[in-house]
């Protein structure tokens, strides 16, 4: 009994810890005071109204969206192909290659950003967006390879065998048997990649330019004196956006397949 109560208590404390900063930011976005206070003083939507008039934030939101969608798509496609190849090809140095593909995780992202920036300037590539897409694709790829790779390991081999016995061609096996079976894992990696890219500050610091300025960097450079309630309002909308994204994808494809099953 005592372990059960302390477990519940610990979980409650953990939830407070997890949600604390969110509650403060969301609450702060409705305060009437000129800076974020908690508990909020009064209630107003004026910060949201002020935000709606900011074209620069809207542009940055679009930049971030484009970037996150492009990086997520690139990482998902490349990562899934690589994970499939790693799962079925058996060549010398496969494990080393897998480790190599995971390396963006262990490299400090700010350095990757600096290094990539220097290299892009060296090649005189004029597009900052291209650099950002490469950078974001690189740092989201390990998540995709990990998640999809894990799903392939757990995949029942008899599925593919059964399909082969039934006379399915390799392409059919891939698209109608293997892909649907690992679809939940791909979906999870899409969500992870999108969130990681959308909220990326460190790799983007040096890669953004006058033509693209992602939302996290916009926020980073906007904060002058303190997080003012307008920044809290942006953050609140972003939290809402991310939740809706996750819930929407979940409704459409069913996350319970991944997290719902119980042994």
């Amino acid at each position: 009994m005592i372990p059960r109560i302390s477990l519940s208590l610990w979980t409650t404390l953990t939830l407070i810890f997890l949600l604390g900063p969110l509650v403060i930011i969301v609450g702060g976005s409705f305060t009437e005071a000129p800076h974020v206070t908690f508990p909020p003083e009064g209630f107003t939507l004026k910060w949201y109204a002020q935000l709606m008039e900011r074209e620069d934030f809207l542009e940055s939101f679009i930049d971030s969206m484009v970037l996150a969608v492009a990086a997520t798509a690139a990482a998902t496609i490349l990562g899934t192909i690589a994970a499939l190849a790693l799962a079925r090809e058996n060549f010398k140095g496969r494990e080393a290659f897998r480790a190599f593909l995971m390396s963006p995780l262990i490299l400090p992202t700010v350095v990757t950003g600096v290094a990539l920036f220097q290299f892009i300037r060296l090649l005189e590539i004029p597009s900052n967006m291209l650099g950002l897409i490469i950078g974001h694709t690189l740092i989201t790829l390990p998540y995709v390879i990990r998640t999809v790779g894990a799903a392939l390991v757990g995949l029942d081999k008899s599925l593919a065998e059964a399909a082969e016995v039934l006379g399915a061609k390799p392409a059919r096996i891939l698209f109608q048997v293997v892909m649907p079976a690992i679809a939940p894992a791909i979906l999870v990696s899409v969500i992870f990649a999108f969130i990681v890219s959308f909220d990326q500050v460190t790799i983007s610091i040096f890669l953004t330019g006058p033509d693209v300025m992602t939302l996290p960097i916009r926020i980073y450079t906007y904060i002058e004196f303190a997080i003012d309630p307008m920044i809290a309002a942006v953050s609140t909308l972003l939290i809402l956006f991310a939740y809706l994204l996750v819930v929407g994808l979940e409704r459409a494809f069913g996350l319970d397949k991944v997290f719902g099953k119980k042994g």
Partner: protein
Amino acid sequence: MTVSRRKFLAGAAGVAAVSTLPTFSARAAEDFIIGTYGGLYSEILDAEVIPGFEQANNVSVQKELGWGSKFIPKIIASKANPPYDLVYVNEDESIFGDAAGLWEPMQPDATPNIAEIYDIAKPPALPQYTCTIYEFTCAYNPEKMDAPKSWGDLWNDKITLGVPHISSTYGMLFLQIAAELNGGGVDNLDPGFKALEDHPSMKIYKGVTDGFGKFRQGEMDAALFYRHRVQLLIDEGLSLDFTAPSEGTYGMRTGVRVVKNSRNVEAAHDWANRAMSAAYQEAFAPKLYSPSNKTVTLDAELAEKHVYGAEKVNSLKFGDWSVLNPKKPELLEKWNRTFTG
């Protein structure tokens, strides 16, 4: 189910492909790219400066927001093909870039407004098109202490002293002040480190936002701080005041430099000229950015809050960056040794 998933992926791939296309197009010649500050500063530029400038020079201004510490590495990384035409820099960065060959040479002929700038903010005193002058004043909480007569009064065990991190211009200046109080100077900053280390109760603040937070939360009772920003806190109703100790206060000059190999050198000099104009600086004055132009006139109430007038401006001391700049790596290392871990 299968269809919707396939559609979703195809759609995502399509969006990604299309969205990258326009960005591959090379930078158009009429783009004029500046590196400048975010927040309020960029808002004033948008409202007051850019429309007129674009019309006069037939260019489209694009801003990259950030700080000198971000712009300079990017310029160094791409000397032949710089990402900016012009950047906003602090005096130390301007001097650093001069030594490292990052700037186009100054052209007083192309920037006639330079004649109206205080002598201390233009060549030969400083190789920079200066538009703003800041003062680092001594801010203190009058409930915790009397107005300090000397910077030395901040070494007092009843208060918590806010110390600016070394990675800012004023961080180095405060270190120099501490050194000077203890028999050192710009050539010998070690006594400064010792004095900071020996302070009974000090707190490092990293940048203005952090400093604001620490003043608001009462975590710092006194600190060297931007005068106009202290003013903002006072206007907010915080128990705070500022004073100029007997040793004097340091100033900082911020302005613009034309980046070497800029493709729009002419327009860049026009921007520099405008940045030094009275009109430009008057647009910034209500937000407490103090003018470098001698001819700017402010009404008495506003002038009170500004670093304003020849007498005040000429009373400011400035860091000797030709000495301090090369010491930055060494100072940073010593700082980390002293205060972290």
